[in-house]
């Protein structure tokens, strides 16, 4: 198994989210082969599950649940995550709430609160996904690609980094308003 470019988790911790591509390329085939055999999934379902497992790892890095993990351990970690995601999928019909602890062990689902929170996050994801440009691009450049605001100004043709800062703040405000409205409509907020 060829491992590419440094420690993946350290790269993710440092904000290099393109490490996900390397993780994906390195572990995809063995993960799919394993899922097909052990979880009895089709190639397409196994690929979907693998993508979710990768995103789950990213979430855990972002919220500080994983800070260190050797590349060689990542395959087993992804597989454990995939197995739990799949079990959650079956149990909850589409609501994924897998939590993995610092040591790579799954953390027990702590009941209704986390399920409700996951539901809310799902709603917010929909809001963000449908937010129009330039906000969509701006927020992606700022929070996913981790570009500096001066760089974003150059890419998107804004006058200065300050203009980008103002625009990002406005876009977040806009997303906030739409998200609150949706959450209220669906009974998550009074």
């Amino acid at each position, binding site marked *: *198994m060829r491992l590419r470019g440094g420690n993946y988790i350290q790269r993710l911790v440092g904000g290099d*989210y*393109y490490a*996900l*591509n390397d993780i*994906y*390329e390195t572990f*995809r*085939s*063995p993960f799919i*082969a*394993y899922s*097909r*055999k052990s979880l009895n999934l089709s*190639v397409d379902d196994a*690929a979907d599950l693998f*993508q979710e497992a*990768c*995103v789950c790892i*990213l*979430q855990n890095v*972002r919220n500080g649940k994983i800070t260190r993990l050797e590349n060689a351990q990542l*395959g*087993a970690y992804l*597989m*454990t995550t995939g197995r739990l995601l799949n079990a959650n999928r079956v149990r909850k019909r589409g609501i994924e709430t897998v939590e993995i602890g610092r040591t790579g062990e799954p953390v027990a689902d702590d009941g209704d609160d986390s399920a*409700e929170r996951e539901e*809310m*996050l799902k709603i*917010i*994801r929909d*809001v*963000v*996904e449908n937010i129009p440009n330039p906000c969509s691009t701006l*927020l*992606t450049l*700022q*929070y*996913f*690609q981790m570009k500096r605001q001066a760089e974003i100004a150059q890419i998107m043709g804004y006058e200065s980094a300050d203009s980008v800062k103002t625009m990002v703040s406005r876009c*977040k405000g806009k*997303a*906030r308003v739409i*998200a*609150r409205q949706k959450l209220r409509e669906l009974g*998550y*907020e*009074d």
Partner: protein
Amino acid sequence: MKIDNTELDRLIEDAVVENAAKKQLMDMEIRLREKEKAKKQRRRRSMWIAGGICTAAAAAVVAAVVLPFREKSAVPGATLAVKVSPDSDSTDVKKDTAVSAGDRAKAACRSYIASIESYRSDYGFEEEIGRAIALLKEGKPADALAALQKTEQAVDSRLAAMEGDDDDSFAEMTRLENLKEDIEWYMALALLSSGDIDAARPLLEKVKESEGEHSADARDILDEVYGDR
């Protein structure tokens, strides 16, 4: 439940990252699938070049031989006969049907066997498979089959022994699973070479369903020999 603006901002940032990550991974999946497809096409092209004359001969044999099946409409191969030789005169072809379905299978798989490069033979099972392939290429399909069956049993035993292991055995299990797919493909070729098309069929179907490295080739042989669509 009420969330304050700071928490909502954090959720929005999380959602931005997750959506972008999903999109990036989806693009990656598409790229990898395209790469795999191109690789398969390259392999198949080289296979046809290697098989060259053999394949042409096999196609001619298939066209001529499957025609008797047309009269028995339920027999696989009837469709293929129409596809391969739509304009041929059935009475002329009927006169020339001395070749059995088994011979047809032998002809069809000859090019695949010819194109097998030397098998990676680092150690253990791979070496056994390499030896079986050599036998197959030497025209000893029965010996090759026996060797492959023996290796498959050994791989199965190793896999069974690993069943209870923890996740650390993941890479090794994956390697063995991939080896099993290879073994099944070569067993199918050995059976086809012996003319035992009934025994080869379930193996070919399994290889086709695996969507692995040999899946497209298995599909082609099923199409060629059994007239599967």
